[in-house]
């Protein structure tokens, strides 16, 4: 079967977000006319800037606030928390305070230069957890793979490396169910490929993923023959991984599919013990010459006996490639609406750095756009960001066993199982009536296992209801909520005498509340 296009909720090239449409229009209505500087109602297709993320403190119902979406977040603590959320999965209160004292450049470099950061505590934790990442006839591997990666995200000392791995998994995606449950090991190997190349040169990453065993299976290249090339990989390589629709022809797809024929991997051992054979298999790329089309091909203006490696090289010379990946990374880290000048600047970095992902990510993480009010709370938080952000912020000890729950599944982000070859559509699509219930109910499962409150070390020392609420709000949502929200939390917390129950209840409310659904 082809890629399981199960839930393709996606408007390609119509990425203006719901945030824009609704906040823009509502704010306009609130002001009665287009007097709200910078929050002018955005219509799709116009060249205007979209609605922004004004500070709540600026917004008084009925007033025409003047918020410039391009203005930089004023509060250094919010800036630090924003960086830690976007470049990682959120910080502890201590980490936020520490980053608040750094320059933009130092803060970015601290995250980017992770090779020097000791991660042995994570390694020890992973070893002790003993997750089963190999196929087992007893099942459970897919769940353990998710728990393994969530553990890495939650407890790593190199959060940007895990963030990049998640970005690559969402972009250069594969699905365990299509690759095959028996080949779980190949999906883990692909994940390790993304981790070890997280900030590599993009050409190298794409060359590697083109030969990655899980990808060869996922997009059918493993079966592609000289007589009948399979176009699946060639198409998605250009459409989704490197150039975008409109930058190649159907003829280019057919020609490049010929270049990728005969790409195979070494066979798995066959001792008769399937589980053992699969566990010991470390497949390597091989070219099956008899199945490879070595004839002359013409691809994007280049003619010759091109193979798949040549195809990737030619793709990477296209101006569209630099625009594609810089735009994608900007939309992963900053906001959905980069100005043309911003992309021009990032393409300059792409060119001057020899296609270095690290250089591009650095340029984004130190930019005004990244720290703008438009970017602040500008994304809907994904389920993975929800659970990992909660664990990191509140310093919760967990083995992520609750991801086996129906409540977690209904949030709709199973790692290693994105909905289709385009990855998770993200944005507004994370939020529906179904997923809103699922988010709250997962937090109920997570914070009240079997009806008992989970231990929340970050909140343990908060003696009074006021202190508890303020600590939680500061750690989780920058203490940036309406006064009435703080008061409602204090009122409710004051009705609960047991400190552990009270802490879990406040954590539930802040984590399930509106501010934390954004990132």
């Amino acid at each position, binding site marked *: 079967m082809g890629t399981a296009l199960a839930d393709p909720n996606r408007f390609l090239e119509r990425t203006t977000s719901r*945030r824009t449409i*609704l906040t823009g229009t*509502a704010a306009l209505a*609130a002001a009665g006319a287009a007097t709200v500087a910078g929050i002018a109602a955005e*219509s799709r297709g116009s060249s205007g800037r979209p609605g922004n993320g004004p500070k709540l403190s600026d*917004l008084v119902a009925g007033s025409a606030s003047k918020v410039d979406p391009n203005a930089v977040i004023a509060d250094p603590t919010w800036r630090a928390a924003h960086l830690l959320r976007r470049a990682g999965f959120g910080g502890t209160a201590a980490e936020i305070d520490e980053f608040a004292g750094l320059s933009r450049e130092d803060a970015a470099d601290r995250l980017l230069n992770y090779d020097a950061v000791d991660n042995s505590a994570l390694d020890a934790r992973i070893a002790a957890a003993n997750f089963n990442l190999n196929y087992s006839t007893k099942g459970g591997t897919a769940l353990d793979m998710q728990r393994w990666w969530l553990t890495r995200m939650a407890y790593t000392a190199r959060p940007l490396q895990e963030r990049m791995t998640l970005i690559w998994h969402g972009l250069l995606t594969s699905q365990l169910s299509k690759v095959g449950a028996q080949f779980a090991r190949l999906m883990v190997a692909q994940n390790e490929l993304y981790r070890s190349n997280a900030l590599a040169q993009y050409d190298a990453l794409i060359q590697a993923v083109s030969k990655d065993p899980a990808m060869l299976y996922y997009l059918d290249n493993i079966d592609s023959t000289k007589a009948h090339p399979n176009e699946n990989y060639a198409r998605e390589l250009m459409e989704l991984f490197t150039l975008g629709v409109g930058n190649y022809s159907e003829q280019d797809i*057919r020609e490049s599919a010929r270049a990728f024929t005969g790409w195979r991997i070494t066979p798995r051992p066959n001792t008769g013990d399937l589980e053992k054979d699969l566990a010991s298999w470390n497949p390597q790329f091989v070219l099956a010459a008899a199945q490879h089309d070595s004839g002359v091909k013409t691809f994007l203006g280049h003619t010759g006996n091109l193979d798949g490696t040549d195809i990737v090289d030619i793709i990477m010379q296209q101006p569209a490639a630099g625009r594609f990946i810089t735009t994608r990374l900007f939309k992963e880290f900053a906001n959905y609406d980069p100005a043309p000048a911003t992309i021009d600047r990032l393409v300059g970095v792409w060119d001057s750095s020899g296609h270095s992902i690290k250089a591009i990510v650095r340029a984004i993480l130190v930019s005004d756009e990244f720290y703008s009010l438009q970017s602040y709370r500008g994304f809907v938080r994904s389920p993975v960001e929800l659970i990992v952000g909660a664990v990191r912020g509140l310093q919760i000890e967990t083995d992520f066993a609750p991801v086996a729950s129906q409540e977690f599944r209904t949030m709709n982000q199973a790692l290693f199982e994105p909905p289709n070859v385009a990855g998770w559509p993200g944005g507004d699509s994370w939020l529906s009536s179904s997923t809103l219930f699922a988010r709250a109910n997962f937090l109920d499962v997570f914070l009240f296992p079997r009806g008992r409150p989970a231990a929340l070390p970050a909140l343990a020392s908060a003696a009074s209801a006021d202190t508890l609420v303020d600590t939680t709000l500061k750690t989780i949502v920058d203490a940036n909520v309406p006064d009435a929200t703080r008061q409602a939390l204090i009122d409710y917390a004051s009705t609960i005498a047991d400190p552990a129950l009270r802490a879990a*209840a406040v954590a539930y409310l802040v984590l399930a509340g509106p501010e934390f659904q954004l990132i």
Partner: protein
Amino acid sequence: MISRRDFVKGGVALVSIGTTANSLLKGTLAFAAQHPADQITPNNGKILILVQMAGGNDGLNTVIPAGDPIYHSVRKAIGVADNDVLPLAQGFGLHPGLTGLKGLWDGGKLAVIRGVGYPDQNYSHFKSMAIWQAGDPDLKLQDGWLGRTLDKLETQSHDPFLGFNIGGSTPPEMQIATVAVPSVQSPADYGFKVNGRNAPASDPRIGTLMKLYEQYPAQSPYGVLLETTLESATSSASQLVAAAGSYKPAATYPKTSFGAGLSVLAEAIVGNLGMRVGHITLGGFDTHSKEVADHAKLMETLDQGLTAFYQDLAAQGRANDVLVLTWSEFGRRVQENANGGTDHGSASVMFALGSGVQTGFYGDQPSLSKLIDNGNLSFTTDFRQVYATVIERWLGTPSAPLLGKQWDQLGFIPAA
């Protein structure tokens, strides 16, 4: 009931109350202020269920041109043998897995629309889906085609189920800023839980959570989306519980998630929840390899689900009110590939199913000998003709404002 429209089109005074009883009144006032009575589309009680066959369904192996020798020459490995085809008419027949649909054709309840596509077919899943979902190959029309339709169909009662999706997130064709569409993936989990149990309306933790959403300013990032999604969730959940209590399926649904989803749609119909447009997706049609086995399974899943759904509604006396329409972003390449599959193609078939359908073929079959784009079918019927027919003749609202122009309509729904 306050609606998303009230948040978007009303002033700030109308958005600050949220889910309290007060909002009911304010929502109604706001709706009346924006909708002179003569601009409200009268509710004709007709319901559309849209079924997305995601991934690109092989139309040639769904409604098979068995009488055409070219079919067998290009589909040597994956072609359906003449003897296995379920005959319809004119040398065409259904995939052997579609036994239920064959019965519905014989009973005059099924129409087949052939050669459906659009000019300059795009062969990308995502671009082509976006085109169908927007109802516009140029992607210039705003929002989804059903979102625009729902905006026209909304009435003063603000039924939370006016549009209803089975799945985890609002499908792009139903998206519009003014109408919130509830999505249900797992009915048992559709509602707040406290300590693992269904929370009563009076639960103080949930009550506080509701307050946090009400107090989140509508002008703040995603403010309207967050509050209206919560409002849609809570109001739809209580109605769904009520409907579940009185609904007994009158047919046996297959034990597939597609079948389960259809039974929830039937529950909403039988429970009179005000639904005008329902949506459900069946995925997995991107059959680049192993098509014979995978496509047969998909055909069976589709057939068993839709047949049970029709039987259920017929037994509940509601078959006259419901039209089921299937679509896919494209068909498959005419010539099979080396992996027992087919690559991305162009024109494909749509089914229209229901007691209000005029059975038969609509749209000409594309020629297998005059291919375009290096081996693909040349479409004969624009998908917007199908949309226009459904919007106008079934849902009862003018189609030109929603589709940008007046399209010729098809006869699968008789003109009024």
